[in-house]
């Protein structure tokens, strides 16, 4: 990008100011610099501030977008939103700038003779509908698939599910939330029988300790971390960072504890061992509210195509659980986890102290794990043994990555096995969906088909012959893209990609559909704390850009399902939301009515009698509790949560003589996931222009690697060349390298492994074996 001297100077001044603001925010969380936010506003303009949620992460900050003469010109934090109280992170402030990118997809593009030809949207949608119909006629309904997103709005997810499962009658629908939240879902369902956290962000104002498990919140959930720092500064709350890499979160915490990859399983068990040994178990809570179970072990890692696994839970008693934990004494676990006995006991003592309130936070470190479901279960075990759950300031809290991974992927259910309420395997749930959708009950198949990884394997094998992706960029974000990119390029599969910008995924499409961006359409998201958030369309999108929900509806109509999609173009978001909320009626999951969501910065479900339920399962706060006890885990038939006996098992691929380093991948604060939006925001792109490979300084020294030197990172699957980064943003442990995945010019997922958790089917992006050499 060429810049004049003046604009370069202005840019540097903005960066200088932004750096100072970041520093100020870490000293004074919640600090607001309104004059800077207002600095670029048109003078004398008539700004109309419109409310909505941030486009980017699962924190779900409330934003106000300043609109002047039909153009979005500014963003500021919504001071009335309890999530962020006016604060935003650097991504949040600059979000609308991506819409001005020169290479915005404004019209449909159809590949003809190897070249993309601009095509009227109606014609492009005809082509998509005809191709989908023709494929079903020739190869059956399970030969077509849709792959959507935790960034799809609630209506977009809902019509995708109704279209695939209710109209066509295939379960070939999955979404990218499989890559980030599936282990959290499986953890919640196995332990509580009900998905999503029991607590809310207000826990931050009450907790004495925050323990973060493999979670760099300072970069991934910056506004929440800022709220935690505020409590640290004002009340002396303590933050303990338990991770495999030293990050900005570690340095801002009171204590950083590092562990060897995969051994979090063992450390969690060792904490439970200590809690029992020291008599810190909350006996009455456990007796009244908890059962014990174990499942199958040595499940494998899903490395082979068509891998199948079904857990077989068996009830056990407290004594056999206690006996099982004898393998996890701090002394035994310290040997392979590299966490000292003292630190394990320190963590256990925090959880064990009845006078201290503790919140555990986690996100990708625990979820993207070949034993991700187990890891989620194990942290719940700690909170259940001590009874520290479902109370203000006490609870396990699984943070979500995407802005509507909860609202859309999990609640609407855009996974192969899900329905808007419940799962396809359950007859009652299928009957309810058939009734609301007005389709024959028999049309909804009772068996799940492909989860994300297996869906792209099926594309590669030629089993799926038509795939439509929306709001996602799988050829940058899937593991082992070295297999799935050539798979998607094969003639055997017709690829439709809806997106806002060109991406490596749209590069392989047969048809590219131009999608409306966030504020160019109305929508609803659901964030990490069960908060449903609505926004109205704020500006017109360019060219023939169209909301994804409307494109799905148009294709459904063209395929002859018009009677199932009787919505109007102007009002479809509201009409769909009203239909959808019928699925969740009742005290356990009631959703706030649109009228409320239009006025407020979101409402938390269960929304009962005009009130958000902040702490579920606690009779004091949750009207759905009906067992006449203080707590009621009503997701399980007997109202009791489950403590699971889950062992430590090693990762599928561990460093060896040939591939001696662990590879860990992840994100950086400046970029949203695969960077397709944030790399088009000049201030963010310049702050973090390219990916890199982080080394521990000792490893760099041993290998004679200097900062910035080009390094080839290779695994058994592929390689990637990146500049070395030593002692910069983060510090991996010795024997580990870290690479962020936002950069489509340095595709680190060509190197990663497509092993997944056998229960949740979520891949592990945090552990595989690589070698490094100078390129």
């Amino acid at each position, binding site marked *: 990008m060429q810049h004049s001297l003046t604009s370069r100077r202005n840019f540097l001044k903005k960066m200088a100011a*932004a750096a100072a*603001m970041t520093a*100020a925010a870490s000293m004074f969380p919640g600090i*607001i*610099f309104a*004059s800077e936010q207002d600095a670029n506003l048109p003078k004398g303009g008539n700004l109309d501030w419109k409310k909505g949620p941030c486009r980017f992460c699962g924190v779900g900050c409330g934003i106000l977008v300043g609109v002047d003469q039909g153009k979005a010109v500014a963003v500021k934090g919504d001071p009335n939103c309890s999530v962020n109280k006016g604060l935003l992170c650097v991504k949040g402030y600059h979000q609308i700038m991506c819409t001005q990118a020169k290479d915005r997809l404004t019209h449909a593009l159809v590949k003809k003779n190897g070249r993309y030809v601009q095509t009227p949207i109606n014609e492009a949608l005809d082509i998509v509908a005809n191709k989908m119909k023709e494929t079903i006629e020739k190869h059956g309904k399970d030969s077509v698939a849709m792959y959507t997103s935790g960034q799809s709005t609630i209506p977009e997810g809902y019509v995708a599910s109704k279209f695939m499962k209710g109209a066509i009658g295939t379960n070939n629908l999955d979404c990218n939330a499989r890559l980030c939240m599936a282990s959290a879902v499986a953890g919640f369902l196995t332990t509580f029988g009900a998905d999503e956290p029991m607590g809310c962000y207000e826990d931050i104002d009450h907790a004495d300790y925050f323990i973060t498990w493999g979670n760099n919140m300072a970069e991934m959930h910056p506004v929440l971390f800022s709220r935690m720092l505020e409590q640290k500064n004002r009340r002396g709350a303590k933050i303990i960072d338990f991770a495999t890499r030293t990050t900005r979160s570690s340095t801002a915490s009171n204590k950083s504890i590092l562990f060897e990859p995969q051994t979090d399983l063992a450390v969690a068990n060792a904490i439970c061992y200590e809690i029992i040994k020291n008599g810190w178990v909350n006996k009455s809570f456990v007796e009244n509210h908890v059962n014990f179970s174990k499942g199958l072990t040595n499940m494998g890692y899903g490395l082979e195509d068509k891998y199948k696994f079904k857990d077989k839970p068996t009830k056990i008693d407290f004594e056999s659980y206690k006996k099982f934990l004898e393998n996890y004494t701090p002394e035994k676990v310290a040997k392979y986890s590299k966490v000292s006995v003292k630190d394990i006991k320190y963590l256990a003592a925090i959880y064990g102290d009845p006078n201290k309130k503790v919140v555990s936070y986690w996100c990708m470190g625990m979820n993207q794990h070949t034993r991700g479901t187990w890891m989620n279960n194990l942290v719940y075990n700690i909170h259940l043994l001590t009874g520290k759950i479902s109370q203000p300031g006490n609870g396990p809290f699984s943070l979500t990555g995407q802005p509507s991974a909860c609202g859309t992927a999990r609640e609407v259910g855009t996974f192969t096995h899900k329905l808007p309420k419940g799962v396809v395997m359950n007859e009652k749930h299928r009957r309810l969906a058939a009734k609301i959708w007005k389709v024959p009950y028999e049309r909804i198949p009772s068996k799940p088909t492909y989860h994300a990884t297996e869906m792209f394997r099926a594309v590669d094998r030629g089993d799926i012959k038509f795939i439509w992706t929306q709001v996602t960029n799988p050829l940058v974000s899937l593991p082992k893209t070295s297999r799935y990119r050539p798979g998607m390029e094969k003639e055997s599969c017709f690829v439709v990609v809806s997106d806002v910008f060109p991406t490596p995924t749209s590069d392989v499409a047969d048809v590219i559909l131009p999608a409306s961006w966030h504020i160019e359409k109305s929508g609803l998201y659901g964030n990490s704390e069960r908060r449903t958030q609505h926004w109205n369309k704020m500006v017109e999108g360019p060219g023939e850009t169209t909301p994804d929900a409307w494109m799905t509806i148009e294709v459904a109509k063209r395929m002859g399902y018009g009677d199932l999609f009787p919505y109007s173009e102007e009002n479809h978001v509201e009409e769909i939301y009203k239909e959808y909320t019928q699925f969740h009626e009742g005290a356990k999951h009631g959703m706030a009515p649109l009228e409320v969501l239009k006025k407020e910065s979101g409402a938390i479900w269960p929304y009962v009698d005009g009130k958000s339920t902040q702490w579920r399962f606690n009779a004091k706060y949750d009207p759905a509790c009906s067992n006449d006890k203080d707590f009621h885990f009503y997701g399980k038939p007997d109202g009791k949560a489950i403590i699971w006996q889950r062992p430590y098992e090693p990762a599928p691929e561990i460093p060896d003589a040939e591939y001696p380093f662990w590879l860990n991948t992840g994100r950086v604060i400046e970029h949203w996931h695969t960077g397709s939006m944030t790399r088009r925001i000049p201030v963010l792109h310049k702050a*973090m222009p390219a990916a*890199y490979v982080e080394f521990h300084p000792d490893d760099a020294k041993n290998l004679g690697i200097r900062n910035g030197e080009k390094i080839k990172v290779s695994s058994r699957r592929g390689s990637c060349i990146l500049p070395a980064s030593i002692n910069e943003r983060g510090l991996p442990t010795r024997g580990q390298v870290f690479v962020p995945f936002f950069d489509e010019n340095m595709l680190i997922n060509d190197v990663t492994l497509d092993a997944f958790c056998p229960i949740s089917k979520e891949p592990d992006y945090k552990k595989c074996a690589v070698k490094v050499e100078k390129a």
Partner: protein
Amino acid sequence: MPIKSYLAHPEEGQKETLIKALSKIDHCDVIPAENEELLIVVTDTENKTDDEKVKASIESIASLKLLAMVSGFNTPKNK
């Protein structure tokens, strides 16, 4: 052409006085926080000598309690 940013902490109750004093200094932009006793100062000068002069002028303001330079904006990874 040094461009630097600072956090400026005013003496108690003197935030407005400090804003006024800083606004009078050339090559110096002020961004006050709305809800805290803190200002951001960005200086933009032609050379090192000018930079030092501006810094000295800022430091001589009576309503200024503490001036802390924020480093790192010019490194690519904003460490």
